[in-house]
């Protein structure tokens, strides 16, 4: 398998002494579907932004496709174009990602930035709009869309760039159940197409359903577990420690008992 990202001893400081990531080592190979799980503030979003070349290590190295990702390196127009065409990032808040006047412009923005020909841009927009069933939204300004529609347009705006790697920050956040199922289907199509997907989430159920590898970030901003979902979800004490599940007593099926719970984590008796 081809290594796409290799992070070694990565530390990211917001300001002196305040870490978002602290000593992270991570390798991502082509075609992997990885869930970065951790409590709020554990550094998941920062790690995703680092993989997308939006923030850079204060210490350690972040390699992408054989090149070290640094601010200076991305100043090189050729490298930047190559990197941006390979990696797409869906932000947690769709509102920040939708900055064009219409949904059509949103979908065309990335391909136009990559310098693609007009016909190719139009073809990609039509194709992705059809796949995501948002043809009816293309003429509308993003502020008139519902939360679920915004998320679809935000995802479509990245898919038109046809990236090899898709980074998604809390993709199921603020989605209604139907949209969540739709999103899982989209990710399944990506898995079938052999593309890499990295999602940051604290929804263990979504992570288990969509990914073959689960990386756990602790509240100390370090990677504390890395394995298959079944391996990681079996580490009950660790998940309790990193604040991904909690334990409380309650009544269920007529009897009072106590066991761990997490976002979407199934009841042990089911």
């Amino acid at each position, binding site marked *: 398998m081809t290594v796409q990202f290799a992070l070694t001893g990565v530390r990211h400081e917001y300001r002196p002494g305040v870490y978002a990531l602290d000593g992270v080592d991570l390798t991502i190979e082509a075609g992997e579907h990885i869930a970065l799980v951790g409590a709020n503030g554990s550094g998941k979003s920062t790690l995703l932004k680092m993989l997308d070349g939006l923030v850079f290590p204060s210490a350690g190295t972040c390699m992408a496709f054989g090149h070290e990702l640094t601010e200076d390196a991305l100043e090189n127009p050729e490298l930047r174009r190559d990197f941006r065409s390979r990696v797409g990032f869906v932000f947690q*808040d769709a509102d*920040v990602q939708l900055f064009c006047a219409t949904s059509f412009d949103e979908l*065309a923005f990335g391909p136009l*930035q990559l310098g693609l020909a007009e016909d190719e841009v139009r073809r990609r927009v039509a194709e992705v709009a059809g796949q995501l069933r948002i043809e009816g939204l293309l003429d509308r*300004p993003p*502020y008139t869309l519902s939360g679920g529609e915004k998320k679809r347009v935000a995802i479509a705006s990245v898919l038109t*760039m046809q990236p090899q790697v898709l980074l998604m920050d809390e993709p199921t956040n603020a989605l209604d159940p139907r949209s969540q199922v739709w999103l899982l289907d989209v990710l399944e199509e990506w898995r079938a197409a052999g593309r890499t997907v990295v999602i940051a989430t604290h929804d263990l159920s979504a992570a288990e359903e969509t990914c073959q590898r689960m990386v756990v970030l602790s509240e100390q901003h370090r990677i504390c577990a890395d394995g298959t979902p079944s391996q990681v979800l079996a580490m009950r004490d660790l998940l309790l420690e990193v604040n991904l599940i909690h334990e409380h007593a309650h009544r269920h099926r007529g009897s009072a008992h106590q066991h761990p719970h997490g976002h979407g984590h199934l009841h042990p008796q089911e």
Partner: protein
Amino acid sequence: MIPAFAHIGDGSPRRPRSHRSLARRTAETIRQAVAEVLENDEISAAPGLMQRLDPRIKLISIVLFAVTASFIQSVWVLLACVVATAGLAAASGIGVGSFSRKVWASAGFFGLMLSLPATTAWISPGPALVPLGPLSITSTGLLVAARLTTRVAAGAGFGMLVVWTTRWTDILQALTAMHLPDVIVATLAMTQQQIMSLLRTVENMHLARESRMLSAGTAADNRSWVTERIAFTAKKSIKTADDVYDAMLARGFSGAMPSLVRLHAVTRDWVWLAASVTASVVLLGIDRVLMPR
């Protein structure tokens, strides 16, 4: 344990509120602002005279009318321009009453306020109509005020016609086609998105406060809260701007904003432009030749 007073349905009648709180009024104002933007979108998508025009031609003709109005001296000719804006509004499916109210409530009012000092003998010496010493209202002053107010109203009327009959996206595309720098067009595009997003945030903040308040609060408390929220919203907007820029970078933004928009002016547009130039010349001719000085 839920306290007794929090239980629903205790049978006691609700006491009607004597007046709406600041939070409620602000939230309603914001909701109206958002509704107006959405209403503008509907009007601009409806069939009408101005809606059919190429956005570039429309912008050029409206700027031409506004500049012409700024050169006109006669109040009567300026009033004719104001009436013309109302006529164009009617031909574009905009209610004349609502259009005129908005023009006079904003531009007319501010024009009047700005020109009030000019009505006095201190600024505009002349025969006093209302003798108040140096602050006497003079006929010369009234003429100056009427001229300024009608000119502002005519200019604002033309501006509102563009805004109401053109989709925001088309205005941006017209500006792009007219070679306005990319960065300005991009900033304008993002500004509207972010204003709408921030309006919703501010509305929710006010409603969240309202939902936890038992009284309307004192004026001082309200002022203090509003000031704090203004600061919070300003900080949030800076953070949002950073995030939006990151999102642009993530999709390859390198400073340019290429567009797929290709506008095509047709015969109707050129006829309209020729008619606009003719009308401007005729208005200036009437003002300079026929109207008394």
